[in-house]
């Protein structure tokens, strides 16, 4: 099986430039610097590389949104906020293969004619940030970054910026505000970052994994990358499997690998003879799947067809014996806590959902509460500045649609059948 990212992640020294170089690292950058810029972008388009941050937007298409004229400097921002519950892949890249990211940054910036790149790393990732900074320093010393990269006239400065611990700062415009030293509030769009982004300049925001894929695409060609995946979604993905499976962890798998094989083959199936009850496939914000819905390829289109999303590749395995009301309640607490508080529907709605779920779980639900949740969801979905409200609504709706009897049971029995209480 062809791997794009993790081939050498077992090698402790792979994070150092010397070893990275010995294993072929920075060859892609040399190649890229001899290519016309448009050709690099064309290869990325051909690669069908879809954003790995959650929305799955085609990277090459997004790059095309930059204004054509070069009168204003352009900025590349790497989203290393990795806040989506169930997702822990970007930290693996940063700690095991930081030079993949840096080489990707250098190639992307060269292709986009950006001379400034910020790597926005979530505040809790202190060690990750140190490793990335060390790698940047090494790369700069070796002439891969800084003034006149590898003897060309191309300058590039890469700066690491630590966030302060807010899920919302993973949303790209909120991230930009935070980067500028402002409150981490998503911006109203339009204007989109590609025209008015960080410090008012044209800006591209990409996820760590998205950019780490770039060197391989340049080395092997876009078509080769595309062929690893499915029709409109190329390459491999880092899939994070969590929950009571035998081998939780990050797996690099071709896009389109079936969810069943991810859980049962790669992650070894459930522990302690537990049966599968449900799966949240793409990070906590994606609609939940029942155990009988996992014969689906892990790619953007297939997931969409069955009403969920590949998201950020965070597969959360939920075993039988889990109270779905409690599980949803915990999720809603997260969104209520993390809503930035800017838009009315999200600010008030997330808190309301959390409170209603809380009382249902505690056996104090009122008649009509389940319908009430669904109506509040309707009033939130698609009505806000950023998709955080949708991210709260999608699990809420899908949990109720698919496990309605558990919610009704709590109301009927006036307690949690699993004996839980907050």
């Amino acid at each position, binding site marked *: 099986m062809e791997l794009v990212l993790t081939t050498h992640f077992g090698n402790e020294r792979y994070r150092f430039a010397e070893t990275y170089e010995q294993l072929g690292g920075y060859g892609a950058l040399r190649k890229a610097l001899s290519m016309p810029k448009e050709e690099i972008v064309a290869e990325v388009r051909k690669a069908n590389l879809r954003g790995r941050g959650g929305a799955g937007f085609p990277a090459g298409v997004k790059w095309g949104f930059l204004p054509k004229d070069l009168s204003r400097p352009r900025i590349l921002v790497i989203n290393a906020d990795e806040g989506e519950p169930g997702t822990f892949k970007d930290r693996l890249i940063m700690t095991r293969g930081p030079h993949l990211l840096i080489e990707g940054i250098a190639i992307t910036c060269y292709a986009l004619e950006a001379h400034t790149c910020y790597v926005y790393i979530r505040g809790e990732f202190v060690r990750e940030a140190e490793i990335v900074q060390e790698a940047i320093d090494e790369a700069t010393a070796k002439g891969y970054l800084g003034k006149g990269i590898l003897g060309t006239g191309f300058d590039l400065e890469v700066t690491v910026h630590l966030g302060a611990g*807010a899920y*919302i700062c993973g949303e790209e415009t909120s991230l930009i505000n935070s980067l500028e030293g402002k*409150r981490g509030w998503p911006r*109203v769009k*339009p204007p989109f970052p590609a025209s008015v982004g960080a410090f008012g300049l044209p800006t591209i925001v990409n996820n760590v994994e998205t950019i780490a894929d770039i060197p391989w695409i340049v080395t092997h060609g876009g078509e080769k990358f595309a062929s690893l995946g499915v029709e409109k979604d190329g390459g491999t993905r880092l899939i994070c499997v969590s929950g009571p499976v035998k081998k939780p962890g990050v797996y690099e798998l071709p896009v389109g690998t079936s969810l069943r094989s991810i859980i049962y083959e790669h992650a070894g199936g459930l522990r302690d003879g537990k049966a599968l009850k449900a799966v949240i496939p793409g990070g906590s914000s994606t609609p939940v799947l029942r155990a009988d819905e996992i014969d689906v390829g892990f790619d953007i289109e297939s997931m969409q067809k069955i009403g969920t999303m590949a998201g950020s590749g965070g597969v959360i395995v939920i075993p039988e014996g889990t109270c779905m009301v409690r599980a949803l309640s915990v999720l809603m607490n997260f969104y*209520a*806590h*993390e*809503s*930035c*508080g*800017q*838009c*009315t*529907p999200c*600010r*008030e*709605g*997330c*808190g*309301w959902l959390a*409170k209603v779920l809380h009382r249902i779980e505690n056996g104090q639900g009122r008649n009509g509460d389940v319908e*009430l949740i669904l109506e*509040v969801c*309707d*009033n*939130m979905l*698609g*009505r*806000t*500045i950023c998709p955080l409200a949708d991210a709260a609504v999608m699990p809420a709706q899908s949990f109720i649609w698919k496990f309605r009897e558990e919610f009704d049971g709590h109301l009927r029995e006036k307690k949690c059948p699993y004996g839980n209480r907050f």
Partner: protein
Amino acid sequence: MPNFTLNGISVDVPEGTTVLQAAKTVGIEIPHYCYHPNLSIAGNCRMCLVEVEKFPKLQIACNTVVTEGMVVKSDTEKVRQAVTGVLELMLINHPVDCPICDQAGECGLQIYYMKYGLHKSRFAFEDKVHKKKVQDIGGQIVLDAERCILCSRCIRFLQEVTGTSELEFFRRGDHSEISIFPGRPLDNQYTGNLADICPVGALTSKDFRFKCRVWFLRGTRSICPGCANGCNVEAHFKEDIVYRLKPRRNDDVNRTWMCDPGRLEYKKANEARLLTPVVRENGGLKAEAWEAALSFAAFRLWETVEAHGAASVAVIASPAFSNEELYLARKLAEEVLRTPNVGFSPRSSGNGLSDDFLIKADKNPNTRGAQLLGISEEKFDDIVRKIEGGEVKALLVFGNELADFPGERTAELLSRVPFVAQVGTNEGAVSLAAHAVLPSASFVERGGTFTNHAGRVQRFWMGFPPRGNARGGIEILVGLANRLGAGWTFAGEASVFRAIARSEAPFAGMSYESLGELGQIAGGKG
């Protein structure tokens, strides 16, 4: 000029117009809280959702720029439900303490609830998030964080208009609340505007709080008399007491704002008013009927001209009076009394405040008007010298003070003049010394025009007739002039303004109609 369709109506708008703005021009209301015409777009309240063809999701009208051929609907069931839904969410953590809220009657939540809400509360009262109430945050403002709908208008105002940024959001989610930073209260001269732009009762005016329920108030369009900027305002009153001034939008003058000192100018219309003509004779003061007081004053002026010649009489006009009144005062001096002694006494500051935004150092609303009507400040200095030299035997003074003179100086000066008649609104050094006090109407009790520092001639309108026994300045001047044999036929400020437009070059071609609500620049240019 893109053309688009709104609820089936075809509308042409200038490039860059948003759907919300365009709707307003054709009289379609799109509910909104965070949008404000003079602030940047925040798009956070989500009240202005509309359907835009080709967009699967509802769009916010405040941030949707009209493009050619766009088809927008704001009157569909889907939109209505969305607006009701947002409103319901807005109210779940709101304390709904309208009975003790000063905003009641002019509250955005009440207004839209009646129009778009009318839902039953489905949220348990005990679950509400509570926040701090009644916080004095400085300036003219009290904050009740619990009533705040977090529209960020106040924050944007302090960032974009005053540049002082004293307010910010704190915390997240439904615990978000606005506040000042610890130990840093509001510190600018425009805080009163926060109470105006806050759509709810979260920011209320310390000065106005609990004085009067707003539904008892009536209003009139007016001009702030506090300085030469001439901010357009509305004066709100109940019967003959004024309760507050609120800015009225005029993008060429004050946008939607006014300063804090200006906001308190209304008090002069209520307090220490001269309300009855008074005559001082043989050392005693006597309230008089108007006929008697005017005849007395006219007689003493005539007598002085007869005895000492016209040059012994002086008229001190005031730039706090309207163009119409100043014009008649000059006419009285030049054509009736035939004295060369006419000038205006400038009231400067008291607080010396000025900035490069609205507040002007010249604390008179009509200095420019006086100048354009050929009345000068230098002439005032000249008159003062003549008073000191004992040359002035009779004086007609407009206004309550002489320039910035301390009370003793005014008293001393006026004591040198055998006869002083005053036309003024408030008690002060002049009324204490005058032999005839002719009480005149405040700025809310009469109509007229002021010319601001930039030469903009702006109308103000009468809200209610002069309080007590006071009279409009025009009526007083006509009364005096005719008693001196002038035969004037002016009736009301419009007739005087027509005369000004005929004879005074800077005002040529103007009329009350052409001035409209927002005024015109004198001389046809800046």
